[in-house]
Structures are given as structure tokens and as C-alpha cells.
């Protein structure tokens, strides 16, 4: 039997289902499974309905599945909402103190906690322990994970765990997988590590879901990583402060979602004009305006490509999972500095807040790449005219230099100009730089191809959507093409990837087909499109049905 299970744990906000979901994932992690956790929650602090769906598999997985093998309910609503998605042999395990249910296994988790003198949040420990016993996880593994994950009141938690474990009957035996145990990272954590590997100095943000996790992670690891992570009064301050820091030599990044990015756009243009390196993480959520703030979408692609007044090029890079996000966050920071340009790492809620198994060996793929620095060869001019359009960098505080950056059009030294020759000269310098950026993209692996590479039928998908699509292309024996760098567009690599393709289906999480519009600009015309715009990611099952119909 294929080792691939889905566990759903749900409850009200404040009941701790998300944390419990992570602990369950770590139990399976100890058994050698690969993990993907999808978190579904609402924009509220108490009440409502939150759930985590934990997919565990012997193979790497990047998507949830529709059917649930184990439904763990802290409250009644969880059963009501998800009962219909239970797989044929699925098991319901529920809080019998709150729920009267005929089907499944009731566990008196609240009573146990009360009897042992615990607090209500510890009911999660009881539910996890009951689940562990039911599926045959050894007690020592359960206790090892609990000890690692629970810092407060661990002795009491272990008491609760032991009592529940002893009093629950074992039903089945989940097999171990003979694989190396991998760290579990959210996309936001992977992005953070990528930036750290590329020598990030300063991260600045204003809280905005789903990017806030980056701020939390970096602030709490400042000492580990030897960086500064700060929160400022609004996104306008955030990006302008970051640009100031980069001008003075610090490798800086900011993170936000669509609405916050909208506020940053004026300064995006400043970064381009002043040629200041700045990495912007844009984690998309369901828009327009305040939209559905805790739900996902891929609807800021065209916005990030065109944001900012005036003519300028920026890198827009859209990785599809945690491992890609790690790599491209680091690479993007290096690219910012190599080309003295703003870059945007475009992810979404599904990447930022989902949890993935992460291959540690990938860490070596990113390191600090030294930018072009001034070596006292000639008098320092911030905007020295060069062949490839890139001017050597020096920073305030260095002896014998005056570094002048300017948001106005400027001469080589950085003094404001408006005469036609001087204006054109500097525009030409930047145009040469843009050409260098275009050439760089073709040297990188800007397009990934999966599945049957010789198939005449192909899906084009980007960002987090590759997760569910990857599973389906393998089943249907067709090709998946993923453009990762979208600006400058990797025309040559896309042409190569599309060679021999007769039927192309575009799949994305937005209402207007934004990637399709981009492809159209380069003469690529998908024959069909599958769009979804209800704030939820695609499920492999629904994609299989839709794609099969078209093929």
C-alpha cells in the first residue's frame, strides 16, 4: 500500500489546532515521512473555524489532497465541515467532552486535562497522544516530539500524554519510511534562510499577512543570524528606510503583501532610479483591496511586473515551494546587488504559510556573491558610465570618496541634470544594464520542466500552483512548464520548453489569467485555461478532472 496519508485537525481559533498540526507532522517526520501542511484560518483571534491539513507521504509532496484519512476534531464544527471529505476507511477522532458523535473514536481530552490539573490548551496534547496510540506510533517517539515542541509545563503535558496513550486502544500500525529525517520549514522560514545565506544585513517590515512570518522568524533569530530585523510605522517608511540602508552598504530586504506593496511602489521607482539594491518579498493574498486576507491567490503578477512610475526593469521571481523559495530568495538578493536594482520575490500564502520538508543539502547552493565594488581605480563617481551599465559601488564613510545617490535624473557624479544630452546619456547607461539583466536570466535556470518532457501536451503553471499540478502531470504522463523568473522574461528557455508542445493549458489562481497575458506578450498562446479564484489552492483531484476533460 502506498504510504500517503492526510490528517485534518480543526477547532476554534485559540484552541491551538495549528500548533497541534505541526506536532503531528513532526511525529510523522520522526517516522521518515515527507510532510506538507496546509493551514486554513480566518482573520480573527478567538472562535470561528481553523484547521490544518497534514499530508504525510513516502515521496516529497507539495500539495494537500481532498480526502482525509484521519479527522481530528477539537470541536463540533470540524466534524460538520469535513465529514464529507473523509476517505472510505477514514477515522474520526474527536473531543468527546464537546461532541456527541456516533461515528469514530471519542476521547475525553478535556476531562483528562482537568483531572490532572492542566489548562485547556493541553487538550491538544491528549488528542495528539490518543491519535499516536491509534495509529501505532511508539510512546518514546511521541514523548521525544512533545519534549522538543512543548516548552511550558512539559511534565504535566507528559502526564496527560501517558494517561491518554495508555487509555486509548491501538487500531492500526502506520509503517516507518526508511528515509533521512528532514527539517520542516514554512515558506517564510525558507525565504528567511535564503536571504541569510546570501548575507542579509537588515530586514524591515510592517505586519501584513501572509508575509509577517518572515519578520517574526528573523526578529526571533537576530542573534543566531547576526542581522537587524525592525518594524517601522508604515510600508512607505519600511521601504525607504531599507533603500537608505542599502545606499550605505547594508544588504536589505523588506516583506509585505499586495496592499503593502502598493504603498511601496513610489519607492520602487526610487530604487530603480537611484540604482539602489533592494529585495522585496511580495506574498500574495486574495485581493483586490482587503480581499480575503488569510486566503491565497496569484493575482499580483501583473502588478509586480509593471509597478512603479517610469521606464525600468526589475527582476520578478516566482518560486513554487519552500526549497525553491530558499534558493531564489538568496539568489534574488545577490542579483539585486550585482545589478544595483530592485527585485521582487513573488510568493503567496500557500507558500509562505504552508510547511514543507526541506532538503538540507540545498543550503550549499546559495552563498554571498560579491557585488562590483570600487577599487580606487579612478575618481569615484556613483553613476560612472560603463559598458555593461553597472557602476562600481562605494559607500559613505569610505575615505576619498563622495557618494551621491539621486532620485532626480543625474550625471555620473550624482548631480541633478535636465539637459537633453545628459538625460539621454544616463538613460542609455541604465538601458545597457537592463540588457545585462536580460542576459543574466538566460544563464540561470529560469524555467523548470517536469513530468513527461517529450509530451505534446503541457501545462504551464507558476508559483505554488506547481504543487498540485506536479502530481497530476505524473499521473497523466504529460509535461509541466514552470516559468520561475518572469521579468526579464526568459524567452529562449521558454521557447525550448515549449518545443513540440501542441496543446498548452494554463493553470493559475486568479480570475483574469495573468500569466497567460504575460505569455501572450511573448507570442505564446495557451489553448485552454483553468482558473480558480475562491482563495483556496487547487487540489490535485479537481485538477485531474478538469485537465482530463480538456485532454
Amino acid at each position, binding site marked *: 500500500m502506498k504510504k500517503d496519508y492526510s490528517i485534518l485537525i480543526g477547532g476554534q481559533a485559540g484552541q491551538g489546532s495549528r500548533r497541534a498540526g505541526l506536532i503531528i507532522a513532526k511525529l510523522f517526520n520522526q517516522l521518515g515521512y515527507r510532510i506538507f501542511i496546509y493551514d486554513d484560518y480566518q482573520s480573527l483571534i478567538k472562535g470561528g473555524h481553523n484547521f490544518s491539513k497534514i499530508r504525510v507521504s513516502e515521496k516529497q509532496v507539495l500539495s494537500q489532497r481532498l480526502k482525509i484519512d484521519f479527522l481530528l476534531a477539537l470541536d463540533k464544527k470540524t466534524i460538520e465541515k469535513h465529514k464529507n471529505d473523509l476517505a472510505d476507511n477514514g477515522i474520526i477522532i474527536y473531543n468527546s467532552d464537546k461532541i456527541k458523535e456516533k461515528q469514530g473514536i471519542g476521547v475525553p481530552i478535556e476531562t483528562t486535562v482537568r483531572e490532572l490539573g492542566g489548562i485547556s490548551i493541553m487538550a491538544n496534547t491528549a488528542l495528539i497522544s490518543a491519535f499516536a496510540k491509534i495509529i501505532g506510533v511508539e510512546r518514546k517517539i511521541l514523548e521525544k516530539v512533545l519534549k522538543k515542541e512543548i516548552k511550558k509545563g512539559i511534565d504535566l503535558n507528559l502526564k496527560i500524554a501517558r494517561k491518554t496513550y495508555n487509555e486509548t486502544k491501538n487500531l492500526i500500525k502506520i509503517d516507518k519510511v526508511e528515509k533521512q529525517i528532514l527539517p520542516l520549514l514554512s515558506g517564510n522560514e525558507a525565504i528567511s534562510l535564503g536571504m541569510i545565506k546570501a548575507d542579509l544585513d*537588515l530586514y524591515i517590515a510592517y505586519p501584513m499577512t501572509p508575509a509577517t512570518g518572515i519578520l517574526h522568524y528573523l526578529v526571533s533569530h537576530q542573534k543566531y543570524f547576526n542581522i537587524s530585523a525592525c518594524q517601522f510605522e508604515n510600508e512607505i517608511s519600511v521601504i525607504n528606510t531599507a*533603500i537608505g540602508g542599502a545606499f550605505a*552598504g547594508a544588504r536589505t530586504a523588506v516583506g509585505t503583501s499586495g496592499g503593502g506593496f502598493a504603498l511601496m511602489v513610489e519607492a520602487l521607482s526610487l530604487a530603480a532610479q537611484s540604482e539602489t539594491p533592494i529585495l522585496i518579498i511580495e506574498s500574495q493574498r486574495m485581493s483586490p483591496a482587503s480581499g480575503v486576507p488569510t486566503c491565497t491567490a496569484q493575482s499580483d503578477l501583473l502588478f509586480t511586473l509593471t509597478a512603479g512610475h517610469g521606464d525600468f526593469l526589475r527582476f520578478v521571481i516566482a518560486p513554487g515551494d519552500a526549497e525553491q523559495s530558499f534558493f531564489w530568495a538568496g539568489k534574488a538578493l545577490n542579483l539585486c546587488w550585482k545589478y544595483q536594482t530592485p527585485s521582487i520575490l513573488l510568493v503567496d500564502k500557500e507558500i509562505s504559510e504552508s510547511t514543507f520538508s526541506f532538503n538540507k543539502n540545498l543550503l550549499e547552493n546559495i552563498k554571498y556573491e560579491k557585488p562590483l565594488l570600487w577599487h580606487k581605480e579612478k575618481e569615484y563617481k556613483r553613476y560612472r558610465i560603463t559598458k555593461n551599465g553597472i557602476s562600481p559601488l562605494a559607500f559613505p564613510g569610505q575615505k576619498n570618496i563622495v557618494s551621491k545617490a539621486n532620485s532626480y535624473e543625474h550625471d555620473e557624479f550624482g548631480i541633478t541634470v535636465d539637459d537633453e544630452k545628459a538625460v539621454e546619456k544616463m538613460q542609455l547607461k541604465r538601458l545597457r544594464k537592463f540588457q545585462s539583466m536580460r542576459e543574466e536570466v538566460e544563464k540561470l535556470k529560469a524555467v523548470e520542466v517536469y513530468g513527461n518532457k517529450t509530451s505534446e501536451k503541457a501545462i504551464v503553471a507558476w508559483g505554488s500552483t506547481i504543487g498540485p499540478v506536479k502530481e497530476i502531470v505524473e499521473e497523466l504522463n504529460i509535461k509541466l512548464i514552470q516559468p520561475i523568473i518572469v521579468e526579464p522574461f526568459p524567452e529562449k528557455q521558454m521557447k525550448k520548453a515549449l518545443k513540440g508542445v501542441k496543446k498548452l493549458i494554463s493553470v493559475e489562481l486568479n480570475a483574469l489569467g495573468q500569466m497567460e497575458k504575460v505569455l501572450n506578450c511573448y507570442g505564446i498562446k495557451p489553448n485552454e485555461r483553468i482558473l480558480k479564484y475562491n482563495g483556496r489552492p487547487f487540489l490535485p483531484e479537481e485538477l485531474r478532472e478538469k485537465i482530463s476533460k480538456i485532454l
Partner: protein
Amino acid sequence: MKKNNTGLNTYCENTWCPGCGNFGILQAFKQAIISLEKKGMPRENVVVVSGIGCNSKITDYLNLNSFTSLHGRPITSAQGIKLANINLKVIVFSGDGGSYNEGISHLIHAAKRNNDITVLVSDNRNFALTTGQFTATSPKGFKGVSSPEGNIETPFNPLEIILSSKATFIARGYSAKIEHLENLIIEGIKHKGFSFIEILQPCVSFFNNYQFYQERVYELKKHDFTSLKEAQEKIKEWDYIDETKKIPIGIFYKIKKPTYEEAVLNRLNLSKKEKQVNLKKALNDHL
């Protein structure tokens, strides 16, 4: 200023109107830099930051490290520069339009954080570079191109706002009193923390209140700079409205408080670059 032996001038043509108050501010600033240099401040550590407006052209006229930022945003650029390198002396040149209108949130929050930067606001009480519209400090009744019938808004007193925002150095200068202003700028740059100097600056083209200031401006006598109460009283002597009142210039308030940069950087150890070493250890938390 014709003599250029200070090395502080650039080849950029000065385009301020003849008689503009900004000339006095530029002169006072250059003198302040030379004076501070004599006391040991390396010139390469000075960074001037400006935004958009007549006064912000000053970055082009100074042969110093500079960042010419967006309208209303130079304070944010400056705080980033300081965070990146705490050895730098970062001085912001802004106008009333930039700091009291477009970017007032940054002014308030930088003061609250006590970012270790110096902010000089040339307050000519109108948007001059866009030909004379009203700003937050334009008097009620000010007739400009966007208020031909007279400004219907009442101005605020920026010093009151900055005091309530917890700035640790607050002063007012006057562009026609160059030496006095020079000393304020020196004190402001020397101050550890957020130093704020409002500079009254007549605008010869759109709001020439030179005579008005000449008749009313007086220099504050020595007083207890650390007294909030005294600062409040003196700041409220003139409210930017009442024409019968005298206008005090000088230092109103000056206290010691840890700077934002100290608080941020003390948590770290940026002098030693050991960034990569703990990454694998960090990953172990995720197993």
C-alpha cells in the same frame, strides 16, 4: 561664498531665487561642518539627505555624501543610512511641505524612536517649488495659487508636535541669523539622538516675511534645557498665528535618552561577521 577653498562646493549651478533664505542655511551648514571637522569629525562620515523642494536642492550644492530621496521621505532614508553604519553623521534637509505635510508620519515616528539623525526643516511656510501653495504652517488667509481667496486652514505649531513626539533635541533657528543657526546645527549634529531644528526661512518669491521675522525674532536666554515645562512654555510663546507675539529662537529642549540604533544594535554583534555559522543549528529546531 565665491571662494571655494573648503572643498564643500560642487560645480552645480545654484538655482535658488536671489535673496532666498536657503543661502543663509547653506552658509550656516557649511560653517558648521568646517567647525565640526576641526574638532575631529571626518568629512567622509557626513551624509546629507534631502527630498523634493527648493531647500532639497542643497544636496546638489554640497560636495558631501548625499542621498536625494523622494518628497517627504528623507527622514526614512536617513534612518536607514544610520542603521547601516552608526559611525555616519546623517543630516536631513527638508521643507515644511515635505516634513509637515507629505511625510509627517515619519517625522513623528523618528522622533518617537529617537533615531540618531539631525533634521533641519527650512520652513518657508508654502510649497515654493510648485509656485506657492499653502502648507501646514501657512497662515490662515495665505493667498497662494491654490488658495486665491485665502487659506481656510489654521496652521499648526510644528514644535508642539515634535515635543509631544518625544524628540530629544528641539530648536528653532532663523535663516537670516547665520552664526546663531550655525551653532544650533553644530549642537544638533553633536546631540546623540533625534535632533530637530525648525528654521524660519523667508521665501522672496511667494511669502516674503523677512520684515515680519526681523521685528519679532529674539534669541532665547540660557534656561534648563531638560525641563519639559519650560520647553512647552517657550514653544507656545508663538503659535504661528498670533502676529502680536515675539518669536523665540534657540534650543528649547535637550535631554539624554538611548538612541534607537543603540537599542537595535546592542542586541546584536555586528562588529563580528559570523553570519553563516549557526544556520545548521537553526535548522535543527525544525526537525
